């Protein structure tokens, strides 16, 4: 039972991990992208739409389905990133408002697309479920949730961490996020870095939506909860102090907290937990924990735990 709980937490956590890794890249470039929930939704819709048309078209090769599905999700979400960076970088629009508009747009778009993806009563894209849950798809336990995309999430998080903190590109990117004017003076192409980071970040976040539908939920209604998960992914960025490798652990913790409502009452022998009213209170846990982390990091006041200094501010070269 406890093993089941942990596996569930890991599988669900990967949705957060994609979202937060993507958002970390974006924030390191100085963009507070509140559109991440919308981006994840669009990623899910893009991936599922691609799977739908491939399966309806008669593609049965599992590898092809997984690869094209992931690519489609990435591209669809990166396109959202392009909209965001065009508005925020080129047109100097307010990032919070742009992000919220992207969430409105993305959630609407996904619901519209997913609503139409059906053939009579069957849902074609769910036929790719076995391919996505590849190594353990025949398992009866929660192990089946740990499919290809779970491993991909961890690999991506580690690679991003390495690039951000150990390479020149990462150094430049962090410089852009901390102080774009200085980065500009040092000869870094600020606009290019911001564009690429936002698009790649959104693309990675978009995979989270697909991961949730094709790996963890595996049901037609799965798409309805992506938005709420997306907001938690934004919160996870703070929990992880802008470091993708910490985010791996954080995402599993968030996953465990998120489903605590359905597992804890059966695991712990306290009477009070077995009442119905306990479930919503347990559901509150991830948010409360995030708030506590926010407060603690702000009170401890350590420079390395700070958000990028230029976060949320647009850079205009001619401004003094």
């Amino acid at each position, binding site marked *: 039972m406890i093993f089941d709980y942990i596996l569930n937490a890991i599988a669900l956590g990967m949705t957060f991990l994609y979202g937060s890794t993507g958002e970390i890249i974006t924030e390191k470039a100085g963009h*507070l992208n509140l559109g991440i929930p919308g981006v994840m939704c669009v990623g899910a819709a893009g991936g599922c739409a691609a799977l739908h048309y491939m399966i309806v078209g008669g593609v049965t090769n599992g590898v092809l389905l997984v690869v094209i599905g992931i690519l489609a999700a990435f591209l669809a979400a990166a396109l959202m990133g392009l909209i965001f960076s065009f508005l925020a970088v080129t047109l100097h629009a307010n990032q919070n408002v742009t992000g919220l508009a992207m969430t409105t747009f993305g959630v609407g778009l996904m619901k519209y697309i997913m609503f139409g993806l059906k053939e009579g009563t069957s849902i074609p894209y769910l036929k790719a479920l076995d391919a996505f849950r590849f190594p353990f798809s025949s398992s009866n336990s929660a192990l089946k949730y740990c499919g290809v995309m779970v491993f991909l999430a961890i690999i991506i998080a580690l690679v991003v961490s390495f690039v951000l903190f150990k390479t020149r590109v990462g150094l430049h990117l962090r410089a852009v996020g901390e102080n774009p004017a200085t980065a500009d003076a040092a000869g870094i192409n600020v606009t290019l870095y911001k564009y690429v980071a936002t698009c790649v970040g959104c693309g990675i976040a978009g995979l989270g939506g697909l991961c949730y539908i094709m790996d963890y939920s595996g049901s037609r209604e799965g798409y309805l909860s992506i938005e709420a998960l997306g907001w938690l992914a934004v*919160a996870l960025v703070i929990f992880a102090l802008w470091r993708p490798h910490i985010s791996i652990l954080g995402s599993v913790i968030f996953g465990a907290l998120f489903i605590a409502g359905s597992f804890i009452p059966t695991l712990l022998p306290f009477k009070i937990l077995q009442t119905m009213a306990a479930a919503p209170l347990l559901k509150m846990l991830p948010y409360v924990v995030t708030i506590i982390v926010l407060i603690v990091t*702000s009170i401890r006041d350590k420079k390395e735990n700070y958000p990028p200094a230029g976060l949320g501010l647009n850079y205009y070269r001619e401004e003094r």
Partner: protein
Amino acid sequence: MAKVKTEKVHEPLFHIVKRDRMPLWQSISIRLGSIVCALAFCALICYIVIDVKPAEFFETMFDGVFGSERRIWKMIKDLAVLLCISLAVTPAFKMRFWNIGAEGQVLMSCLASVACVIYFGGKMSNWMLLVCMALASVIMGAIWAVIPAVFKAKWDTNETLFTLMMNYVATSLVSFFLIVWVPSGSSTLGELDYGHLPNIYNRYLVLVLVVAAITVAMYIYLNYCKHGYEISVVGESQKTACYIGINVKKVVIRTLIVSGALCGIAGFLIVSALDHSVTTASAGGQGFTAIMVSWLAKFNPIIMVATSFLIVFLQQGVNQVATDCNISNAFPNIIVGIILFFVIGCEFFINYKIMFRGKEASKK
């Protein structure tokens, strides 16, 4: 001997210059122009995706909003609620405090109102009950807003994420209390019998009048009060505010109390005039929409009437299109999103101008 290089200086095709100030008519016409462009774009998308002719599209939209008296009142009611929440978030935004927790603040005050009805309903006169509900809502909204504000003022905790998390805590609390209050286990609270606002003409008129009064009051508060002045100074530059002797912490906390209290009024109005109940969706995402409404109006309460009308008109109008064409009810969100992108983008042309290479040279 080194040669003197005569390098040709590369001059970009155009560069961007910040504008000083634009005449009002010009900035308004740019904004209207962007809305017209956006609507045309949406009509085109509808024509391609769901095969509705543009003329038909606009006709259905107008019909959906102004088609009958019932629809007009629905529009007015939605407008009033959205406007009320937008007004609530405005003072905080003007101070550059990104309170995206209006959703949670409204929800908590709905909960407080309903709690009053459940515990005091029938035990006191309707007027007393309404006063109790209003007070409880206002206090609850203010508390929910002031918690992040205190941490922001004291330790500079990131308010955007704090308020965002508070939304979800509020949602969980509502579902917790619904389980406690509804013994049947269905967790849906039916319409309550007590604590209704009086029907004058119809059940919406009181609501509209209250919101109208708040609009005017907020305009005066922001433009003709010392508080309003302090808010705008803190928003423009915290250092300046410190320098001229404004206690920034005090202003932050005070403004968030005002902001939360107004969210409380919105919650009270939702319960007492409209829903007479509470669900986890009582705020219905309007806390987020309100942020965009407020920003589009450039934090001006009077213009906010127009911007919230725009959003409500779009939502209700496109909803009608979606119902008539039998497509997903998420369609209005797509259209609203697209239009917001256009309007957000057009701000650029108001704040900046593009100088082309040729023009520059001829000037010299």
